[in-house]
């Protein structure tokens, strides 16, 4: 079996029990969260602290909006052949007071979704290379 690797280093982690968690940055000075972390410093103009700590974000949130995509995007999206439509969800995290995007888990019935419903993070295969299965975080109905 090919080893798994995340589609981008440092954005999320998979746990032994099969669950997944996003990893962002948190400012110890003002409390702000950032996802992805991207930089070492805090971008709150009233703070500007030089360091952010790595922090696991909430794995559950509420659905803010959603869509499905029925046409293959251009590269660098690793579209399967034949193209497989996929959903995208915007999920609000209560503790972090932010909205985070993710694809919807395969098989999610987009027509049955509604804003405000509970969602949780998971991970699925995005594509395969010659030597790895590339994984990505996704949102699924909680």
């Amino acid at each position, binding site marked *: 079996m090919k080893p798994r690797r995340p589609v981008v280093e440092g954005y999320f982690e998979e746990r032994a029990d099969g669950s997944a968690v996003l990893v*962002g940055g948190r400012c110890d000075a*003002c409390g*702000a969260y950032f996802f992805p972390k991207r930089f070492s410093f805090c971008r709150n103009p009233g703070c500007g602290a030089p360091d952010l700590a790595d922090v696991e974000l909430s794995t559950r949130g509420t659905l803010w909006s959603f869509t499905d995509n029925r046409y293959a995007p251009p590269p660098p999206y690793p579209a399967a052949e034949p193209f497989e439509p996929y959903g995208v969800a915007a999920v609000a995290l209560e503790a972090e*007071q932010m909205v985070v995007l993710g694809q919807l888990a395969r098989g999610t019935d987009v027509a049955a979704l509604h*804003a405000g419903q509970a969602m949780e993070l998971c991970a699925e295969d995005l594509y395969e290379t010659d030597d790895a299965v590339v994984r990505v975080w996704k949102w699924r109905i909680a």
Partner: protein
Amino acid sequence: MSEVVVLGAGMHPWGKWGRNFVEYGVVAARAALADAGLGWGDVGFLAAGNTMRNGYPGYVSGSTFAQSLGWQGTRVSSSFAACASGAVAIDSARAQIQAGRCDVALVVGADTAPKGFFGPLPGVRPEDPDWIRFHVLGATNPTYFALYARRRMEAYGATTDDFAAVKIKNSRHGLENPNARYRKEFGAAEIAESPVVADPLRLVDICATSDGAAALVLASAEYAARRADRDRHVRIAAISTVTPRYPNTYLDMPDIATDSAVGAALPERSFRDSIAHAAYEEAGLGPGDLSLAEVYDLSTALELDWYENIGLCGEGEAEALLRSGATTLGGRVPVNPSGGLACFGEAIPAQAIAQVVELTTQLRGEAGARQVDGARVGLSINQGLFGHGSCVIATR
């Protein structure tokens, strides 16, 4: 600070012509100069909007157009602010005039666009949010438009019939616009047969990518006052090129997450609201003063968002305003009398300039079949990804 005057406006028609963007830009620039009764030799400053998809000449658009019109030592600027590039170019030209460094400035934006979805620049660049959103999520521009559209449905009860009504309205508005790419009236039945690209948006809800160019000739009020054609002069009352205020908690392209509201007070206004607010403050005008507006209908649903962002109605009231007919030609404040992006498609660095060309044409009373009666104040607004606001208020 004295107001700057629009002396000339010109365009190259929008389409899919497949030629070099410089060709379109030169046509538009010459048209604007001819409209102003001036020559290239009268221009003291050239401000251009960049294009990212046409190689190095697109990154140095100011000198590209200066060379193409013929080197004459003109000072130039080349601006990129995504869809807001044109507004930044207009702002750059205005600042030169207001600083007294020139009397007449030329503003140009032109693009040759690829077919289909816009993608990020080539290469593997995990540090670039625009690359990340495509590679990791397949989040195209229509994905974001669809998330905004679905949000309107969930939060305010908008329907796909409302989105179709925007398309029908704009398709009628653009019928007689000689610079529009699509001059075809759409009906509800035809829209219902259009394939869904990103639910709830259909292909006809989403603007195409186009080739095209637009140009303006701007002048100082003192220079303009000495001319005989003063009844055609249009004044730039405000230009807003604001960026968001932290924390920006509304999902914004190309980010895959919003700012966190922890640890900071929310700004008084959303980013999109703040774009128009800054322009109204500068002009000393308000939504009630508008005769017309040109808003960035990247999707039909997004036009409804803009009604609220520019204060034509309260939050969640855009569908009712649309249904009342107020934003249709003949209504209280027609929106997108040009036909909007629905009829033009998007030629990125030209689009904000094209919006001001339409304001100019309307305020002069030269818009023919799509003329807004008695137009005195016009507002144009758009937003470029990565946090660029763009709003111009023009008066006659």
